């Protein structure tokens, strides 16, 4: 039997070539999920294509209109660079991932390709209608996140495609990310929510995690609160207690949680309402 092989490409093109050359080869980014499965005997890859040396994936670009984040950007990068100023909710989400050791390894591209319902960056990416660029032998294609993540740990990414980058439009206004788990560090979300308040478009965007097979937008909650907020109030956008309560209810209706070893469906639905409302209350003024 031929010994297992590893490819250590330095460009995306080489990575795609390596995937094409060895069907069944597994892509390895930060390894924080992949290596656990290998360590526990759940995977025995015949070949691995390791992306750690592909510098073109570890980049970001902030323009007046958009933010481009390379797939190799680590959670530590998201929390510790200019990205934290333009995408504060992404930085907040990244800071809740694992431990410093994990945040130094795990990547944005890995979070997307792993497609866990609990992926911490996914609620914000869903809220912002992120577009994800993949590169394969036939070239690049760009899809909305919702067409990439198709189910629990399943994606539409072909076996010979590499996640290259994520693009989101810039929004002016406060953002929040909140997550519920059993402790503050090293925790997989039981429920999570990202809230983006756009002071120019006068809209609120809400992405939810761990309460459905895929990250979901709470669009009815968004429309309700977008209409209910007094955007021109002095001191910043203002929402009534009743409007905020209704917002929470609509968030709960957008969720379709399950009961599993981490929590119950009932708790998840309750928790996601509370944290989404709390996240919003940190972005707007609550009227008496």
């Amino acid at each position: 039997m031929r010994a297992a092989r590893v490819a250590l490409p330095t460009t995306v093109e080489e990575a795609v070539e390596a995937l094409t050359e060895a069907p069944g080869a597994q892509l390895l980014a930060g390894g924080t999920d992949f290596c656990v499965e290998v360590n526990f005997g759940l995977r025995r890859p015949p070949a691995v294509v390791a992306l750690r040396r592909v510098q073109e994936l570890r980049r970001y670009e902030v323009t007046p209109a958009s933010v481009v984040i390379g797939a190799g950007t680590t959670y530590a990068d998201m929390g510790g660079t200019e990205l934290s100023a333009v995408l504060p909710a992404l930085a907040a989400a990244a800071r809740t991932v694992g431990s410093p050791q994990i945040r130094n390894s795990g990547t944005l591209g890995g979070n997307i390709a792993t497609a866990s319902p609990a992926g911490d960056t996914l609620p914000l990416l869903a809220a912002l209608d992120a577009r994800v660029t993949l590169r394969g032998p036939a070239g690049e294609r760009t899809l909305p996140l919702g067409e990439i993540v198709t189910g629990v740990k399943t994606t539409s990414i072909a076996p010979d495609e590499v996640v290259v980058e994520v693009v989101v439009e810039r929004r002016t206004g406060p953002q929040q990310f909140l997550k519920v788990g059993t402790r503050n560090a090293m925790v997989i979300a039981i429920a999570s929510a990202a809230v983006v308040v756009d002071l120019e478009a006068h809209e609120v965007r809400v992405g939810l995690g761990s309460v459905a097979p895929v990250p979901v937008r709470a669009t009815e909650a968004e429309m309700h609160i977008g209409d209910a907020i007094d955007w021109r109030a002095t001191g910043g956008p203002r929402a009534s207690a009743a409007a905020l309560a209704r917002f929470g209810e609509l968030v709960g209706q957008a969720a379709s949680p399950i009961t599993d070893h981490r929590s119950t469906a009932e708790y998840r639905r309750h928790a996601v309402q509370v944290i989404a409302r709390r996240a919003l209350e940190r972005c707007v003024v609550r009227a008496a």
Partner: protein
Amino acid sequence: MPPEGPATARSLGGPADGPAYVQADRYELLVNGTRRTVEDAWLGESLLYVLRERLGLPGSKNACEQGECGSCSVLLDSVVVCACLVLGVDAIGSQVETVEGLSADGDVAEIQAGLVDAGGVQCGFCTPGFVVAVHDLLRRTPLADEMAVREALSGNLCRCTGYGRILEAVRRVQRSRAVSDDSDGSDGGTGDGE
């Protein structure tokens, strides 16, 4: 610091099947400044396994194998990571520093002494991981406050001490380094300068 290209990998491991591939059963790693050859390896072996079982470096401890406990903390290109979550072959071309290397250089002597003096070592199994994590923190942020210390050590589990004595050890090291900074104004030992 970014890892270097796979030039080392390409020159080793026998004939590659394609331009990008190398065999994963024989390769070279740079560990604690020394080139070490890994032989008869399997692709899926973690860096932790390679260090402990193939290179005779058992200082990095093997506990959870899923990145939860931090007992296997090492520096990979000067960044603290869990060695159990790095494939051995993926460390080709990178600088690996283990607690053995840091101890031999004396970089962590103060931290080790601080842990002992403060009673931060009981069964000792988590200690090497804490030594590496504390070293990583204090060379980047010598004056890290209590919250920063707790956050930096949140990925290292200790089931004996309750953490109070470990946190006390970090404070002692910070105090002693601050004092030595004041006294000689130069070689203050606030880190290894990286």
